[in-house]
């Protein structure tokens, strides 16, 4: 890890928003686990929290941070350093510090209350979701010079993945209810990292039994270790593709 990453992390970790985010996550997780009488229910509630706040904070905080760093990026660019290294350092800095926040806020309570395979998976999923939305923030902030527009794009993407996408899924479910659409649905969920993460966790909690036939089809896929590996590969693609697109754009960007 180079110095730039180190100082970026130090900078972000001292940021008020990140401190509040960490506190919020830990208050939520501790209270969820101490209020719910069984840890499986606690995990469910926590899943909700993770899938709502983590993407929101990750994407918006990263976008704002990138825009606020534009002069800093210029300063770095005037130094003998590769463009990609600057972008990578910013990415690593944001990802590592948000991961750290997540780990302190959610990871520790999970490891204490639910140190099983679902707990570990939840932790991994949270870390992946954080990273994915940092990556999406990198893409949306490189798309436009205008800070307000960039933040707007980030919020819209978050709304889309967190809310609108599920609306579309529900619509499709009703439109295509006469057809066997389970396999198609597996494909469609791959288009939304939040859904993918949610369903992966749900199928490993006992609520999966409530999903009936669809659940069974999904379990056939997500329940196997191959399925889990595929899910994580897709999540990885969700990190790599937006970030790679952003770095391509950054390399030829005029600052």
């Amino acid at each position: 890890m180079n110095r730039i990453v180190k100082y970026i992390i130090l900078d972000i970790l001292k940021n008020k928003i990140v401190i509040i985010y960490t506190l919020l996550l830990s208050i939520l997780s501790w209270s969820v686990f101490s209020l719910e009488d069984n840890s499986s229910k606690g995990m469910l509630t926590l899943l909700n929290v993770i899938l709502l706040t983590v993407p929101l904070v990750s994407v918006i905080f990263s976008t704002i941070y990138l825009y606020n760093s534009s002069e800093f990026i210029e300063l770095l660019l005037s130094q003998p350093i590769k463009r990609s290294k600057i972008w990578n350092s910013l990415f690593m800095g944001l990802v590592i510090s948000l991961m750290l926040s997540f780990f302190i806020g959610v990871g520790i309570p999970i490891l204490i209350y639910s140190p099983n395979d679902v707990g570990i998976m939840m932790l991994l999923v949270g870390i992946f979701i954080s990273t994915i939305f940092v990556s999406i923030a990198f893409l949306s902030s490189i798309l436009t010079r205008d800070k307000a527009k960039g933040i707007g794009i980030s919020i819209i993407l978050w709304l889309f993945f967190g809310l609108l996408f599920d609306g579309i899924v529900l619509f499709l479910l009703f439109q295509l209810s006469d057809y066997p659409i389970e396999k198609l649905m597996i494909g469609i969920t791959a288009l939304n990292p939040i859904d993918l993460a949610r369903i992966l966790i749900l199928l490993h909690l006992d609520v999966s039994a409530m999903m009936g036939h669809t659940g069974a089809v999904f379990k056939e896929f997500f329940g196997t270790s191959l399925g889990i590996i595929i899910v994580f590969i897709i999540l990885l693609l969700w990190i790599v593709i937006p970030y790679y697109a952003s770095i391509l754009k950054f390399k030829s960007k005029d600052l």
Partner: protein
Amino acid sequence: MIEINQLHKSFGKLKVLNDINLTFSSGDCIALIGPNGCGKTTLIKSILGMVIPDKGNIKVNGKLISKDYQYREQIGYMPQIGRYPDNMTIGHIIEMIKDIRKTNQKLDEELLNQFLLKSMFDKRMRTLSGGTTQKVSATIAFLFNPNILILDEPTAGLDPLASEILKEKIITEKQKGKLILITSHLLSELDELISHVVFMNEGQVKFHKTIADLKDATGEQKISKAIANVLKSTIHE
């Protein structure tokens, strides 16, 4: 030292740089002047590799700068507005840039001392005034003894005392035979420093002259007046 050949750049439909040809050599102290939006900053950013030209090329020390980044070791840059991550301290920033440069050379800490920054090493950037931030930017630009100094509005936002310190520093560096490129719109400030003037307008270089030539041609002793004269004549043409 710096050679700019047929440089073109447009942002969308707007032509920002239109066929720029310039050569700067060491020992020069060039004032890059012109109205707002004339392409000064874009030109500087092109030299620094922040803006990638559409056409033409730039050579620093005879080497093309496209697809290279090492050449920036020789450049010290002071931006017009310095903004740094809120929670980094002055110490962190200097530390970080030292790490990027990985230089074993002795550092030029003159400005660091004169601006009394050492006592503020642990202060966060967020808490600094605009002037102090500029002091940090200036310090960084000079810290590594670069052969080329690019200063974008260096004295803007500095108090008179600091401004004077910076000017002194620029003169010393100039005497060491370094190439210094300054943009400014306050012409009078530059009188004692500069050897050449480059005037730009609407993306083109209107003239590139030594101070002596300029004074001779217009018969004015003050640079600002001389330039004003030239401008008048060009407009009348």
